């Protein structure tokens, strides 16, 4: 469970929103909505630990009863998907996934897991491909798989559907939610598309 207690973000001695208390249960999607500038993305950056130092913050973030406020971003075990897929352009599709895979998985097994993962997102056999040659939908799926292979304990979604066209958007949304449920991940979704919130099916918080 991802738990936010009394979270507030202050910039130039102004609070972005009234203190937040949110509990996101494993396998459940909570949606945060609000106009641009309301601090949705800053909230996610704070949860990741990558918020710019100009912000002052207060409150407690815990993940599975582990307080993570003071942990560096890489130790938090929180995965995030952005509006842009941000696949690493210097690595192949397979290498993008390998980057996320823990080091404890070695050699042949690494290869197998990556091939399996590609199969799951209907891209089998495309390990060697340059990500630049993939379609928008394919790239989005690789980005999702990359996030999941790092074995996060929670998933943050920063409007990851907004750049996809309507038809793709629905399919990709389902894929993300089904994987999150399968992995039993608490999910926090930030969006300003009401259709996203509806599809998520969980509680909705408006900033």
């Amino acid at each position: 469970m991802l738990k936010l207690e009394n979270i507030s973000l202050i910039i130039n001695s102004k609070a972005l929103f009234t203190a937040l208390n949110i509990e996101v249960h494993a396998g459940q999607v909570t949606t945060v909505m609000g106009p641009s500038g309301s601090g949705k993305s800053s909230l996610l950056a704070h949860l990741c630990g990558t918020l710019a130092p100009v912000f002052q913050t207060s409150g407690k973030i815990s993940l599975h009863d582990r307080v993570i406020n003071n942990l560096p971003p890489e130790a938090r075990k929180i995965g995030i998907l952005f509006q842009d897929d941000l696949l690493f352009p210097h690595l192949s599709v397979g290498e993008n996934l390998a980057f996320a895979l823990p080091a404890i998985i070695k050699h042949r097994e690494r290869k197998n897991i990556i091939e399996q993962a590609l199969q799951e997102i209907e891209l089998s056999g495309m390990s060697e491909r340059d990500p630049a040659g993939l379609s928008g939908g394919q790239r989005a799926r690789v980005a999702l798989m990359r996030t999941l292979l790092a074995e996060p304990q929670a998933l943050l979604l920063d409007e990851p559907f907004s750049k996809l066209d309507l038809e793709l958007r629905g399919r990709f949304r389902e894929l993300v939610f089904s994987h999150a449920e399968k992995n039993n991940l608490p999910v926090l979704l930030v969006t300003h598309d009401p259709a996203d919130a509806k599809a998520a099916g969980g509680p909705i918080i408006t900033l």
Partner: protein
Amino acid sequence: MGATLRSVNYLSVFQRLTQLLLLLPIAAGLLGAFFPAFGYFPEIGGNQLNIDVFRELLKQPALPHSVRLTIFSGITATLISLCFALALAAMFSQVEYSSQSKLKFNRLFLMMRRGLIPLIAVPHAAMALGLVFLIAPSGWLIRWVSFSLMGWDTPPELISVQDPLGLSLIFGLVLKETPYLLLMILAALPQIRAAEYLRIGQSLGYGAFRSWLKLILPQVYPLIRLPVFAVLAFSLSVVDVSLILGPTTPPTLSVLILRWLDNPDLSMRFFASAGAILLLGITLGSLLFWRIAEWFVLNKFRKWLTNGKRGSDNEAATAVFVSGFFLITTAFLSLLALAFWSLSLRWPYPHVLPQTWTFRNWERHWNSLQETAMTTLEVGILTVVLALILVVACLENEQWRRARFSIRSEWLLYLPLLIPQATFLLGVQILAVRFELDGTFLLLVWSHLLFVLPYVFLTLADPWRKLDRRYPIIAQCLGASPLQILFRVKLPLLLKPLLVAAAIGFAVSVAQYLPTIFAGGGRFSTLTTEAVSYAAGADRRVIGVYGFLQALFPWLALLLALSVPRWLYRNRADLS
């Protein structure tokens, strides 16, 4: 659009002119060095092409050692500078993009970052002279140590400058090239969206430092390859720094060439030319070697990129921080040492500070200082104005006629920085003598332009291309002509980058040593040539005066470039 197009058609002339101004002296210079190297130099009795000169050259006892020294110091200096610059850039991004970094470090980092910009403006020679004052056996560092700890009353016997291995030469080069490469990297980072990739890397469990190495480095390197090559070519052929810090028996190849040239025996000019061609070969060979090494390193580390090993790298990061801090402090202390010496009357060993302070050194040299300073200013300002006109015209040409300066043209701009100065300037001089152009102001300015133009272009091109294209369109719809748009919309909007480009161009001109003595034919002395020639003498006070003024000029230019727009636009929040 048709009428406008006709009125900006003349702009393409400027692009051709710029290319010609760069290519002509390089091509002529290479030929001018090439023929004498193969024995053809009718004025001094060489009438046919052969390879006898090279045969003789290779028999010179100093040559093998000198070549080894040149290659070793050039490649090592470049490699160390690049490693420092990359590691420091990684640290800077970590501080900038992460809320988790320790705040007390942040302030130190900001200071370091601010300190970088004045450092790239300091001429190489000034930095090298200051470094001598710092690390020489009777230098500042030893004085601190001996004064506080060791109780030495005579300077220790160690060879800390002009050491036979060229280590102090390498140190001097690293001190100047690290800030330059670092700024180039920092300028390239936004283009590859480094901040966002770092966030992804961290959310996948990698520490900031290692995320940078695995994700940002492979993407940013291709963008800084040209500056790295320029640093390598420069380090292999540098003359002034090598005269000050490099070993003397034998010196690096470029200094050897200069010695042959100064030799009263005219037949030594054949040697100089052959040496220049050899230096060209060494430079091209080293660039090729570097490119192959890049490929090798990439292949070697390809697996490492995706092996999934996380690690925090805190020790590495701390080490980088400490050494970077040490490097930048050394640079500033060197400059401070110049200033102190210029103001000292008596400063015997082992005192840490001058015993008597005075302005007498400045007064005594005031007349000759004025004259050299004026020459320096005239050449610098004229060169920068010419460079700005050409660069702005090229950029306008690119925008109005949609003729983007192609990749090939950008390589052309870099050509003067990739071919060793000693090689083509020697050829230029040989031809200039024949056409009685040597020692003219025109040739002097032209030779400076070769090196100023690339830097002005590289500084200005990015902001120019990034200016919102809708501003000129709006102005056009309001009835303004291209020239009106340039002077009333674009130049005012781009005033700051324009002045910064001018200041950097000026700094480059002030720093030129070899072009000034070659193209100037010994008739013009600038602060740099004076400082370097005094460096051979023993009077530290004079060296301090010339060295400090040489460092001060570009600094003042940069200060002016940064503060004028701030003052002019003090009531324009979006521009200041």
